[in-house]
């Protein structure tokens, strides 16, 4: 099982970590010697900060500019099926510059729609986090629970999120809880599996300490298990939140309502391609922020554990 798990966790980590923060330390380290040589040890750290900020922000900006330029040139001309960046700017300007306008119930800013989707993700993901950690603990702690449950989990986790939707619509008879259920069932597997691995990797020493102290089950869970497995749990949560965000857009396309997913479907039906592209950018940025948020919380929470 652990081989399958590693496959699951490792690439996700690599993908997410390869982003911005990896770029931060490297350039600043390279430039440090320069500055310290020029008697600048008393110079305010603002400069150093600014420099490292610039070296993080400028390269992606250049990349984006190049993409936009290429796109503009490629989609230029009357035969093109896709709008150019300038055309998008003309057509969907209100969506871009004003995320929170409100002109009646169906004509609202993308910010509102994102918030509605985020709310669904928040409920579904929170439930998945709680249930996932508890089930993962059970599977990690008990050999028989693992033998009984793990094969079932391994099969269920391969079911694509949307395949659950018809079933949950039938069960809940309403789109809102169905969408939340899809988020839940999508996000829970990586949480369970990573928590289980984390629990199984609790060093015997910590268990011995708990035994000598005669910690009861509840104390052991909160004082030893959760902190010790926290780095693994947060890896699972991070993968889970990413999957939730993937699933919500697809689920909303089918269930309707106010969310960002339905907006895309609606825009497609009325051939507003520019709107769709703006919505894609919104989704991407919010997904990125969600991932960073969970990573940040994980970083703060696992301060002590990770450094050991």
């Amino acid at each position, binding site marked *: 099982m652990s081989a399958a798990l590693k496959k699951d966790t490792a690439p996700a980590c690599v993908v997410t970590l390869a982003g911005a923060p990896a770029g931060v330390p490297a350039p600043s380290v390279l430039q440090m010697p320069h500055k310290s040589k020029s008697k600048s040890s008393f110079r305010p750290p603002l400069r150093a900060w600014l420099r490292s900020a610039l070296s993080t922000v400028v390269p992606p900006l250049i990349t984006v500019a190049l993409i936009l330029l290429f796109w503009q040139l490629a989609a230029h001309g009357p035969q093109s099926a896709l709008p150019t960046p300038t055309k998008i700017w003309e057509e969907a300007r209100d969506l871009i510059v004003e995320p929170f306008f409100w002109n009646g119930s169906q004509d609202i800013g993308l910010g509102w729609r994102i918030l509605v989707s985020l709310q669904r993700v928040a409920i579904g993901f929170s439930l998945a986090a709680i249930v996932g950690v508890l089930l993962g603990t059970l599977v990690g702690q008990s050999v028989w629970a693992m033998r009984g449950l793990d094969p079932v989990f391994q099969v269920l986790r391969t079911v694509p999120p949307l395949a659950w939707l018809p079933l949950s619509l039938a069960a809940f008879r309403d789109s809102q809880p169905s969408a939340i259920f899809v988020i839940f069932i999508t996000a829970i597997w990586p949480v369970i599996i990573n928590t289980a691995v984390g629990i199984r990797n609790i*060093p015997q*020493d*910590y268990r*011995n*300490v708990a*035994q*000598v*102290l*005669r*910690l009861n089950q509840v*104390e052991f869970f909160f*004082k*030893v298990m959760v*902190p*010790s497995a*926290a780095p693994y749990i947060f890896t699972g949560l991070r993968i889970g939140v990413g999957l939730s965000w993937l699933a919500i857009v697809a689920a909303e396309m089918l269930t309707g309502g106010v969310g960002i997913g339905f907006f895309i479907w609606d825009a497609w039906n009325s051939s507003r391609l520019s709107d769709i592209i703006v919505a894609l950018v919104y989704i991407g940025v919010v997904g990125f922020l969600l991932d960073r948020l969970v990573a940040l919380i994980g970083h703060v929470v*696992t*301060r*002590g*554990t990770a*450094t*050991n």
Partner: protein
Amino acid sequence: MSYLKIDHVDKRFQRGSVSTEVLKDINLVIEKGEFVSIIGHSGCGKSTLLNIVAGLTPVSAGAVLLEGKEVNASGPERAVVFQNHSLLPWLTVYANVALAVNKVFGATRSKAERHDWIMHNLDLVQMAHARDKRPAEISGGMKQRVGIARGLAMEPKILLLDEPFGALDALTRAHLQDSVMQIHAALGNTMIMITHDVDEAVLLSDRIVMMTNGPSAHIGEVLDVRLARPRKRLELVSDRTYIAAREAVLKFLYERHRFVEAA
């Protein structure tokens, strides 16, 4: 009546159909306030013996009696100082000791009393200055000091030390040995220490229990170390009793019970 009695203890480990006998017929009586070292080559089962006394490993036959009562589960009255300190890395030094103190004395002492007790024990090992540091931020010797403080803070009837200085450099080790001697002199605890360092065993112990090589290890010899306390490391170097005790242990380990695999 003896304080701690290890009575005809056998330990076998079963793996599939293969059964290995690690310990065979271990008998040992320890009096209150005694410092006993258990020495032997690696793999002879001395850590297993300590874990049995701690209640972390069940016996296959025989029993361990503390004040006449059989012990078969672990508990804070037999605190363990682990070989690799085993501090919880997400807790500060203070919180690591507090976890033990709050668990053991949560019902019987007030919050202020518990705080004083935690600080008293950190003072005892000279670690009060680092109370808000995490284990990753302090040196190996300091971690082991905190480990000892945590063990002492449980007010155990017996403190079990599992190769407590094994992972430390020689200078740090000497410092900690002195600390343990002082604490033993001041508090009069009963202590059992696992070690494979002959000098350490002679310096600290009232008695040295020498174990034969496994499998089926048993107690080969028990040596009384009749050295007056307090003992001073430097004065002992030329002390006749010390040299004789050292020689006896070395002869046991390297003449009569040579570690075959190492040869």
